[in-house]
């Protein structure tokens, strides 16, 4: 199982990479494996802002559907448009090209409650 050390994680299986005050968010390798073939990443293209723990979209796989939760609050800077036509990118490259949204972090203190790689790997029983 691929759980990069440089990232932080949520209990809902999102990852977040923080670069200055910009956060990039996606779902983990474990999550994409559990979901199976991703066929649709449904994020409102007009989404402006997210609150920590709030639902920011839905991910549809062949067998199941799962909600996406924001790891932190902030202004939505970008939504990964590539996933509209090639949602399977989430399966192929969950930590890279398969990212979902970029957020301008408004409350850095929230980041302290995120899991590190060790805690996340424990969560999924690796």
């Amino acid at each position, binding site marked *: 199982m691929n759980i990069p050390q440089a990232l932080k994680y949520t209990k809902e299986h999102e990852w977040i990479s923080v670069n200055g005050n910009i956060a990039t968010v996606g779902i983990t390798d474990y999550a994409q494996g559990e979901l*199976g073939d991703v066929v649709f990443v449904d994020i409102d293209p007009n989404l402006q802002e997210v609150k920590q723990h709030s639902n920011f979209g839905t991910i549809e796989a*062949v067998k199941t559907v799962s909600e996406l939760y924001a790891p932190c609050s902030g202004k939505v800077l970008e939504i990964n448009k590539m996933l509209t036509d090639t949602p399977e990118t989430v399966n192929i490259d969950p930590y890279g090209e398969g990212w979902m949204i970029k957020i301008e972090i408004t409350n850095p203190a929230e980041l302290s409650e995120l899991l590190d790689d060790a805690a996340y790997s424990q969560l999924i029983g690796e």
Partner: protein
Amino acid sequence: MKRTTFYSIHKNLNAKLVEFAGYEMPVQYSSIIAEHKAVRQSVGVFDVSHMGEVFVRGEKAFDFVQEITINDVEKLFPGRVQYSAMCYEDGGIVDDLLVYCISEKEYLLVINASNIEKDFAWMQKNNSFDVELINASDEYSLLAVQGPNSKKIIEKLYGKELTLEYYHFLQDKMLDVEMIISRTGYTGELGYELYFKGDEQVATKIWNALFEAGKEFDIQPVGLGARDSLRLEMGYCLYGNDIDQTTNPLEAGLSWITRLSKSHFIGKEALLLAKQNGLKRKLTPLVIEERAFPRHGYTVVFKSKEIGSVTSGTVSPILEKGIALAYLSTETLKETKEVQMLIRGREISAQVGRLPFISK
């Protein structure tokens, strides 16, 4: 949880295993979409050993099967298979099944894994023909080999040309294993099902031989996930989703197996009455053009009024569209070919389609 004789093979292939009808079964090996396409384009192998096998033997085996199933057993002869169903007195469905005619005094009924106990009890309860009922479900392994290249592979193992027609079977040895080779399946593709007894060693021998013979066709193991999307693309019913004790075969689109002209069978009176009164609802194929995918339980509305709910839904890997089956009122269907499905609070347009969803 029960395991089939192929359990170790699934484990070694890193299949994702789930509980299904009391069995630990592979839901997918690599990807549902890839496995689905392998079956449509070349060939795939499914372990469906969890299915139930009940043998009916006796002087009046024919009469018994004729009484408990809705299709006409008169049409069968040794070597012929028939898709059928068992109904309750009120016309609700006990199970859908395959009827194999071994002889006029011996039939094999192949039933859904989740219904084995219920079905067997129902058969025993209605055995007024003094037939012998043998539940051999735990003794049989069952592999479905499905796809346009399936025939070439089975012939390699069989060592002879196979002239089996659709829904016919033969009993013979293959790789020294006594087997029922049946030209059946639930995918809509050319395909065969292999029934045989024996332990893990026997099962492994057959599995390995199939994969060796299928190498040139890039044969793939296929899990229950793709089994579901393959059958849904064809519009085939799944017991527990599209049909159950609360639905009758006429509204489920199974009037083609409901032989109301038979002198008698359990449920006939209720079904005749239902037909005379006119069907209130019909299992209806729906297609969604937008990127939104139907799921079991989603509500179907028309003019903002609820008119039914989705019994089976998925994204069709071949059409790359959402496809679903839903019971809709026949009144509404007279009025419109376009309804809406409630998906996460939004009304998404769904077109009434035709079965099969994919053109064959």
